[in-house]
């Protein structure tokens, strides 16, 4: 059941479509048939919007651009060039896809606010252009003969069939995307774009693919709209209401779900048509008010949409996997196999520097990381540790210096490429996909290494085993406690089979016993041969874990060496405890 709800296959989609058609078949009233057809159009638009904005989190106010292009392609081709919509529609879809790429490429450079505003402007610009071109009301001419060649059917039912087929295809595409590499990569970048890049996801490429697919589906909806209504106006094609309706249908029904937009459309469209037909005779603007109220209510009380609530009710606790009582405890550190530290240098940092404004955050930092060792980066708060990790990762570009890994200099490389080379990094703020399983959360990290989806899932399973969470595969990530989340985050990075593991404050905020578990896991990874660099504050834990320390203060390296030496080093003591401490200790 859960599978049909989350990622419906052809059978489930077909069943719904058939039920839909069955209902439509028995209705004689052409007006109600029209409502059914409208439902399919807006379900498609909702799916289109969802495929892009729902999964990536980049709110698009401008899907009317793709829709309108679909409409006008079909109409103008039919009107001016006598081209049948059977050809016009695919061309409309193509127009949508190309527009997606053209609009996406420049606009993706923008963030949040600016992105939404820019997307707003595109359809409105197109609106004015088409008005200027004189296409105020182009109409597809009625064809008496061979009407089916032009998709003009005597019986509305055939129109409905086409609509249902198109809608089903759109839903199917959405379903393929949802739990696949495509959907998961998008969801990862929605949660935290930096972290996604750090795990090796090429965010730019996926955003582009998403907007192209989205544009195509919207173009199809537009093309179909043209065939149904036979006339296009700039306002109905490119107007705000089209964009808003697509968005609201998806939001109301359920963002980031496959059935959501369909549910949304099935609920809102008939309702709005009903209002239009009754109250709308006396008062204008009912459709808009309904949509507006629907969305305000949704935002305040059920931000996830209607479908998730429906789903909860349908599943009613079935298919819930119970969480194991605890993670597999790693063997005590003393019992673990000794680490083999090679002489190969895995990472060599030389003269790394970075300034922000006038502030030198990292200043001429140099150190080496040897194969199989655990290196701890420590220092008082504000010493530049996280900045340094960001430099290693590629999130920030160093002003000077080299980071040699293998025979490459990592400075200036994009984060996802750094990850592809084998440098994995964890993040402090771990936000999982709460409604997906642990396995699905972890598999995102495997994509950088495995191009085959099955192999990726296998890698994810192995990673979970390495942290002791293999029993957690199907548990929903939303129910994990902080220890489990930390381990899952480590598993996610391990799924990419990194040569070098960068751990960023993995112990922060954990309690005593939890710290022991994480220490044991990290230590075991090291004894398996993993090379690890870790930033941490909890000194008492670090001292037992690491082979060597590098101490940073005010962006420079104060000291490096074995824990016993470093913690007695007067410079280090002074950095942590203050100059006067040392003076006092002399007495």
């Amino acid at each position: 059941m859960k599978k049909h709800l989350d990622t419906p296959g052809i059978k489930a989609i077909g069943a719904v479509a058939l039920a839909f058609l069955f209902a439509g078949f028995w209705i004689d009233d052409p007006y109600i048939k029209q409502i059914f057809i409208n439902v399919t159009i807006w379900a498609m638009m909702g799916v289109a919007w969802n495929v892009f904005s729902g999964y990536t989190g980049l709110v698009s106010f401008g899907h009317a651009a793709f829709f309108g292009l679909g409409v006008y392609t079909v109409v103008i081709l039919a009107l001016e060039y006598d081209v049948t919509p059977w050809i016009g529609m695919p061309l409309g879809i193509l127009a949508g896809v190309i527009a997606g790429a053209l609009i996406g490429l420049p606009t993706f450079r923008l963030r949040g606010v600016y992105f939404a505003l820019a997307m707003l402007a595109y359809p409105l610009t197109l609106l004015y252009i088409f008005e200027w071109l004189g296409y105020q009301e182009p109409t597809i001419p009625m064809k008496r003969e061979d009407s089916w060649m032009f998709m003009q059917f005597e019986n509305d039912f055939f129109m409905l069939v086409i609509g249902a087929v198109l809608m089903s295809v759109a839903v199917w595409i959405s379903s393929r995307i949802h739990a696949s590499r495509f959907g998961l990569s998008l969801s990862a970048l929605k949660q935290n774009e930096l972290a996604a890049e750090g795990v090796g996801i090429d965010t730019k490429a996926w955003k582009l693919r998403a907007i192209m697919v989205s544009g195509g589906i919207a173009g199809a909806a537009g093309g179909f709209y043209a065939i149904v209504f036979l006339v296009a106006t700039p306002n109905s094609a490119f107007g705000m209401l089209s964009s808003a309706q697509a968005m609201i249908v998806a939001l109301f029904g359920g963002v980031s779900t496959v059935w959501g937009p369909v549910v949304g459309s099935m609920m809102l469209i008939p309702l709005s048509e009903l209002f239009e037909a009754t109250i709308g005779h006396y008062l204008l603007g009912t459709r808009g008010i309904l949509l507006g109220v629907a969305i305000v209510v949704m935002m305040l009380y059920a931000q996830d949409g209607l479908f998730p609530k429906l789903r909860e009710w349908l599943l009613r606790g079935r298919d819930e996997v119970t969480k194991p009582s605890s993670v597999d405890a790693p063997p005590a550190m003393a019992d673990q196999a000794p680490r083999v530290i090679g002489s190969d240098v895995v990472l060599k940092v030389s003269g790394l520097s970075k300034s922000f404004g006038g502030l030198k955050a990292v200043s001429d930092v140099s150190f080496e990381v040897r194969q199989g060792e655990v290196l701890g980066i420590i220092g008082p708060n504000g010493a530049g540790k996280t900045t340094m990790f960001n430099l290693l990762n590629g999130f920030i570009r160093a002003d000077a210096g080299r980071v040699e890994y293998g025979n490459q200099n990592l400075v200036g490389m994009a984060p996802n490429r750094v990850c592809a080379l084998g440098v994995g990094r964890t993040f402090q703020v771990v936000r999982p996909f709460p409604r997906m399983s642990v396995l699905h959360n972890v598999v995102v990290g495997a994509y950088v290494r495995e191009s085959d989806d099955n192999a990726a899932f296998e890698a994810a399973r192995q990673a979970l085993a390495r942290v002791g969470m293999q029993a957690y595969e199907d548990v929903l990530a939303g129910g994990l406690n902080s220890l489990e989340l930390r381990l899952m985050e480590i598993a996610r990075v391990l799924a990419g089979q990194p040569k070098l593991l960068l751990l960023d404050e993995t112990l922060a905020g954990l309690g005593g016993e939890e710290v022991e578990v994480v220490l044991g896991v990290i230590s075991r990874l090291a004894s398996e041969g993993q090379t690890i660099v870790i930033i941490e504050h909890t000194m008492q834990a670090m001292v037992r874990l690491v082979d060597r320390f590098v101490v940073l203060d005010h962006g420079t390296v104060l000291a490096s060496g074995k824990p016993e030496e470093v913690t007695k080093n007067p410079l280090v003591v002074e950095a942590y405890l203050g100059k006067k401490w040392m003076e006092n200790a002399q007495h």
Partner: protein
Amino acid sequence: MLSIKELHTSYGGLKALDNVTIKIEPGQFVAIVGPNGAGKTTLFKSISGTVSAERGDIQWQGQSIMAMPPAQRPELGIAHVPEGRQMFRELTVLENLEMGAQTAEAKSNWTRNLDQVLGLFPVLGERRNQLAGTLSGGEQQMVAIGRGLMSAPKLLMLDEPSMGLAPKITDMIFERIEEIHKETDIAILLVEQRVAEALASCDYGYVLQSGRIALEGTPEALMKDETVRSVYLGL
């Protein structure tokens, strides 16, 4: 005057403060030291009311303030100088100081308080019309402390004033803090990572580690105690 009793707090799902008990008398200078992540900022946020506690009590002059909304707490006479200084970057130095003086009492003593602040930090007088966002770290810290003083507080809470500042500037800031302690009867609660500077001038100290009070005592006692060192350096 300020009494924190057995406070338990969680922040972002993690336990931040565990059974913390601290007392401050009027005019007293209390320092709280501890490594990063020990819960020091969470403590301040609890006093200011932006983080709510699970258990325990915070009392001001004998009355519990747990239910008081954050915006009203400065009325009590508590000034919070936040971690990282938190300037109003688009406002001038003078305007920042103005924002510190929200209470009626602070407004009526505006001129006198301003003189006092400018006396402590003369460079602010030179830069009074400069945008706070363009100041150096040390100058921003001075504005932050000045802002706190402008509210004519009974308790001045300073959250890691040395963070991100060069050692010489840090020394200067600590000297000024000592001056405030000597020249006025404002109680000071100082939270710091750098132990020695903090302990040097205070009347009483607490060592916070992983949300718990590991140690407390007079500065002399703490400076001699090896536990402090192990809290920071692990060995």
